[in-house]
């Protein structure tokens, strides 16, 4: 499951980044700010990746979302809920 989540998260993130970056080239620990991700695109990315992985966005609060600053953190957070599911 985590592999699937990571793949889905990479694809969803690549779609909203301002520069063309292959999904596999995004470092798990790269800060979203450093990647040029705007706040709205971060929200879209998280909404989209939750859709694709069937992890309900309702598991997270606005505060949780604000704390997710890297792809790795998003994958970890989603994986925890996917395992529970």
């Amino acid at each position: 499951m985590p592999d699937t989540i990571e793949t889905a998260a990479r694809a969803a993130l690549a779609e909203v980044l301002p520069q063309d970056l292959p999904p596999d080239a995004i470092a798990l620990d790269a800060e979203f700010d450093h990647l040029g991700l705007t706040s709205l695109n971060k929200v879209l990315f998280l909404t989209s990746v939750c859709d694709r992985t069937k992890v309900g966005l309702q598991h997270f609060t606005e505060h949780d979302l604000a704390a997710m600053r890297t792809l790795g953190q998003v994958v970890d957070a989603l994986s925890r809920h996917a395992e529970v599911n």
Partner: protein
Amino acid sequence: MSVLNRVIGGPPRPGNRLTVARLGATASWDLTEVWELSGRVAARLLGLGVRPGDRIGILAANSLEWVLLDLAALRIKAVTAGFDPGKFDATGAELVARYGLTLLFTDQDETADRVHPIASLRELPPYERELPTSVWELGEAPALKFTSGSSGPAKSLLASAGSIDSSLAAVQDMFAHGPGDDLFVFLPLSLLQQRYWVYSALAFGHDVTISTYEAAFAALRTARPTVVMGVPGFFESARAHLEATAARTGASLAEVAVETFGDRIRYLWTGSAPANPDTLRCFTDAGLPIFEGYGLNETCIVTKNHPGAHRPGSVGRVLPGKEVLIDADGVINVRSEHPVATRYEHARPGDADLMFRPGGIVRTGDLGHLDEDGYLFVHGRADDVIVLENGKKIVVRPIEERLKASPVIEDCVLTNPSQRQLVAIVSPAAQQVDTDRIAAALRQANTGLDRDEQIAKAVLAERFTVANGLLSSQFKPRRKQIEARYRRLVIDPEEGIRA
């Protein structure tokens, strides 16, 4: 009766609802319940000693309590001062002192003198006595609102009841919101205009859904609103999402639009910053008509496209009670029958003189023209201003001048493709570029600037010349050409020299 006085004059008709859709929790109330609950909050405020004219601060994310406090303040003629926690670094106690607040309610886990948790307004007991009857006169001010300064702390002004009233009435004439409508609001309620849609629901009988920035995209599909109020940046992001999803899944844009916004959209509302015409066209083509308008905090809504009068590329015709005057420099000036304000409450010396002119006229600083049918077209700023995604307006010229003070930098242009960070595109003073010295110049320029005004990185360009098209014949940098030529380097996080 004025719209505002209709809102506070008595309970609304039953059958319409306020929904608060946040991540993890959605709840809904009939507007009659909202009215009753706001009465309990009003009684609590009176019990805490609040009197007409007192200022009530709200430093909190969107919530039911936000709505109740604002309505309660309106009902007892107190003044609401809304603060977006994402924008104000100050504590509640500091805001109380700075803005002369009688009380402040917050969700920021702070207690201090005059600072109360907003959660304390939940589950108040019913009030036993009648609340005093209140009427807002047109010149009185129910709201203290804040406008992003070009630098330094936010400016504030007291917004008149007359300006709120005339805007609400004009919007209702244009869009006829009513039963069956559900207006979706996710921008902070600290912005007075976002509260208009709650007032509209109470006065004209429709639903309203309050969400948050973070929950908006998730909440839209389940809320199934008929109208979405958003800034251009929101629709820009949504368009990119629609196009990427359509490309990935093979679905049509219209199908993805329904999936994203729900299946009941009547129209989309945007304004407050220039919108990309391609984005507006994309939504219209996808079956979601989008109407752009124009206005400043200091003017409220001045023009608006709407179903009955829409000219793409324009920001619409002038609303009743407003008059647009284009001065000799091509700058848009706005005269209002009911001015929002004629001065700032808090601002740096001289700021008010730049904006407010005699006779209820506001000099907007935007360039534009009216066509023969009265549609306003906005061409840009008279001075160069960058608007960050947090709404902060950055006047770039003084910052560029600071950077150009370095002997290694001949010229530069500031840009912000991500709307978050300023990037300098630098024309070096010499062919042999010393990147360490440019980094030092960045640090020097950033010293003493507010965080939002600091330059995150510099991108090296070839020297700007007339011959290579990067300088005008008057030897001024041609911003659009420079930004277009170096866009790839500007947005690539691996490129550039960091401070």
